[in-house]
C-alpha cells in the first residue's frame, strides 16, 4: 500500500499544484523568490534562508496579457511565463531573480520588472564565452547579486552558509542523477513522465524537502516489482525545455524515454559545484561551464586560430556519446521550442553529431501549446517505425 504523501504520488500532486507548498511556506512567514531560468544560482538564495521557486509557463494557458509587451513571434515559453505573471498568478512572490542566459530571458526580465512591483528584483548579466575574463566578469555579477540580496534581507551571506547551501544543492544534483540510474535497466524502472513530475516538484520546494522527496522516490522506484512496460525503443530527447507531461506522454506512448537532456529535466543536475576559496568562484564556474545549454559559445580550444569541425562538434556535443552508450539509446529526438534561436542554430550540427555516432535522430518543432499534439504523434510513430525495422 503506497503512502499518498510520499514519493511519486506526492511528486504528482505537487506537479499538478506547484504553488501549494510555496504558498504554505509564505503563510508560515518564509520569503519566496522566483527565478525563470536554471542559470540563476539558487544556492545563494537557499543560503539566506530564501525559498527559490522556479516560475514557469502553463502550456494549457492561452497567452493574452503578454501581448501587451511581447510579440507573438517570440519564445513561447517566456511569453507564457510572463503572461502568468501579468495575470497575477505569482503575486505571492517576494522577489524575482532574472538572468541574461538568452535574449528571451533578458527581454522578458526587463518587461517583467517594469510591469510588476515585487519588493526585490535583480537582473544578472552573463557572458557568452567560457574565457577566463568572462568567468571573472560573471563572478563579479554574482558578487553584485550577493550585495543586493544582503541589502534586501539585511543579512550577511557568509561563506559557511553558502557552502552548506551548495552541499544541499549538490546533494540534490546527485540524487537526480541517481534517479536517472533507474532508467538504465530495460525496461526502465521509472518513466520520463514520472521524472518530469519529480523535477517540476523539486523546483517548487525548499532544497531539503526536495531531497527528501527524491530519497523517497528513489526507494519507492527501487522497490517496484516488474518495472514498466518494455517498449520497442529507448529514446533520448534533446531540448531547450521539457516541463510538461502532455508532450512527454506522446513520446512515451510507443517508446521508453530513458534520458531527457533538457531544462525541466536533467540539465540543471548534471554537474556539481566545486568548493573554492571564494564560493562564488565555484558557482560562477559551474553555471558558466558545466550547464550544457546551447546559449554558451563552446569551441574545441578557447580562442583557437585553427578550426576543425569534427573537434568542434566534439566540444559542443561530446557529452552525449557516453549517455548514448550507458543508457543504450537507439533513437534521439531533437525537440525545438519554436523561436528558440540558440537551439535552432544547433540543430543541423547536432544531427551531424548523432549521425557520426550512429544514432538515428529526428527533428520536431513545437510551440509550447497542447494544441496540435496529434501530428506530433504521427511523427514519433513513423520515426519509431523507421528504427524498428
Amino acid at each position, binding site marked *: 500500500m503506497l503512502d499518498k504523501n510520499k514519493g511519486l504520488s506526492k511528486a504528482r500532486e505537487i506537479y499538478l499544484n506547484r504553488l501549494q507548498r510555496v504558498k504554505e511556506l509564505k503563510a508560515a512567514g518564509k520569503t519566496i523568490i522566483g527565478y525563470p531560468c536554471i542559470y540563476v544560482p539558487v544556492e545563494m538564495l537557499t543560503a539566506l534562508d530564501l525559498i527559490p521557486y522556479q516560475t514557469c509557463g502553463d502550456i494549457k494557458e492561452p497567452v493574452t496579457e503578454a501581448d501587451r509587451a511581447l510579440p507573438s513571434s517570440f519564445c513561447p515559453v517566456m511569453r507564457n511565463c510572463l503572461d502568468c505573471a501579468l495575470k497575477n498568478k505569482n503575486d505571492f512572490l517576494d522577489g524575482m531573480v532574472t538572468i541574461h542566459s538568452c535574449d528571451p530571458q533578458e527581454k522578458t526580465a526587463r518587461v517583467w520588472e517594469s510591469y510588476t512591483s515585487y519588493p526585490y528584483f535583480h537582473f544578472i548579466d552573463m557572458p557568452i564565452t567560457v574565457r577566463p575574463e568572462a568567468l571573472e566578469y560573471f563572478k563579479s555579477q554574482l558578487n553584485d547579486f550577493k550585495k543586493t540580496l544582503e541589502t534586501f534581507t539585511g543579512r550577511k551571506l557568509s561563506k559557511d552558509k553558502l557552502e552548506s547551501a551548495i552541499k544541499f544543492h549538490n546533494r540534490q544534483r546527485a540524487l537526480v542523477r541517481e534517479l536517472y540510474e533507474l532508467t538504465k535497466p530495460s525496461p526502465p524502472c521509472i518513466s520520463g513522465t514520472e521524472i518530469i513530475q519529480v523535477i517540476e516538484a523539486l523546483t517548487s520546494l525548499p532544497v531539503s524537502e526536495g531531497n527528501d522527496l527524491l530519497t523517497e522516490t528513489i526507494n519507492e522506484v527501487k522497490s517496484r516489482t516488474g518495472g514498466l512496460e518494455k517498449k520497442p525503443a529507448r529514446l533520448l530527447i534533446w531540448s531547450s525545455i521539457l516541463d510538461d507531461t502532455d508532450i512527454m506522454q506522446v513520446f512515451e506512448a510507443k517508446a521508453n524515454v530513458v534520458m531527457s537532456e533538457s531544462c525541466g529535466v536533467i540539465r540543471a543536475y548534471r554537474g556539481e559545484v566545486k568548493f573554492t576559496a571564494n564560493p562564488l568562484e565555484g558557482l560562477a564556474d559551474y553555471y558558466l561551464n558545466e550547464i550544457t545549454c546551447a546559449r554558451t559559445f563552446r569551441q574545441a580550444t578557447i580562442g583557437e586560430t585553427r578550426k576543425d569541425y569534427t573537434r568542434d562538434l566534439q566540444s559542443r556535443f561530446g557529452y552525449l556519446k557516453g549517455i548514448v552508450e550507458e543508457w543504450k539509446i537507439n533513437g534521439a529526438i531533437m525537440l525545438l521550442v*519554436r523561436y528558440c534561436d540558440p537551439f535552432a542554430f544547433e540543430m543541423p550540427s547536432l544531427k551531424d553529431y548523432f549521425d557520426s555516432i550512429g544514432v*538515428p535522430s529526428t*527533428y520536431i*518543432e513545437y*510551440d509550447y501549446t497542447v494544441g*496540435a499534439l*496529434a*501530428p506530433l504523434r*504521427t*511523427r514519433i*510513430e*513513423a*520515426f519509431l*517505425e*523507421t528504427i524498428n*525495422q
Partner: protein
Amino acid sequence: MYFTGVDIGSTMTKVVLIDESDNLLSAIKGPTGPEHRQLANEVMRQSLEQAGLQIDDISYIVATGYGRLNVPFADSQITELSCHARGVSSLFPNVRTAIDIGGQDAKCMKINNGKLTSFVMNDKCAAGTGRFLEVTAATLGVRLEDMGDIALKATKKIQVSSLCTIFAQQEVVTLLSRGENLENIVAGLHDALANRIAALARRLGIEPDLVLTGGVAKNTGMVKAMKESLGCELLVPEEPLLTGALGAAILAKETYMKAVVVGEDLPTKSRRLEKATFFS
C-alpha cells in the same frame, strides 16, 4: 484471403481491398467529415459491396492516416508515412524518394525496398502544404481543382511570398487590386509552394526514382512546378490519393502472412460494422 487498408486523411477517406496476390478488388474515396467512425463504417460497407464480400471474409485490416485511431474494426494502426512508402513502392518498385502533399501536411520519404528508411515532414506551417492552395483559391474565388490548369496558362512569373499562407493570401489581395492577371498569380502560388516542398525534400536528399503522391499530385500545374523547382523527373501514380490505403492493405497482408509463417495468431478486432456515430 482478403485484406483491407483504411486511410482516414484530414480531407479524404480512402479504403482499398486486395486479395493475397495483391489484386485490387475495390477502392473507395469519400470526403472526411467530422464523424470519422461513422464514415469508416460507411466506406468499408461500400468497399465490401463493391467487392461482393462480407466483413468476416477480411483476414486483416490496417488503419492509417490522421483518423487511424477511429476505425473500430481495424486490427492495427500504422502511420501514413510507412503506408505511403509501401504503397508507392508497390506501384514503382524502383522508387527511392516519395513526396506526399496532403491538405494538412507535406511529407518526404526515403524508401529502400518498400520500407520507409527516413522522412521529413512539414505540419507546422501551412505555407508548405496543400492548404496553401486551398486558402488562396478561396481568396481568388477559384475552385481548387481548377487551380492547376489556370497556372498552366500563365504568361509571366510573379513571386509570391512563401513565408506564410496568411501573408500570401494578403499578397494575392494586393496583386488583385493592382489588377494583376489571375493566371500569373496562380502560377506564382504554385511556384511558392513547390519551392517550399523542394526545400523540404532536399533536407532529406533526393534520389531517383522520385514519386509525387497525395491529392495535390492530381494538380497538373503543381506537378510542372515541382519538376521545375526539383530539377528532375517526377513519377505520378494514376490514383495518387490511394497510395496510403493501398500501402495499408499490403502491410495488412504482409503482417498476416508473416504471422501465418511463424504460426502466431494475430489479435483481431470484432468485425461488426456498428453504426457508431461520433457526436452522439
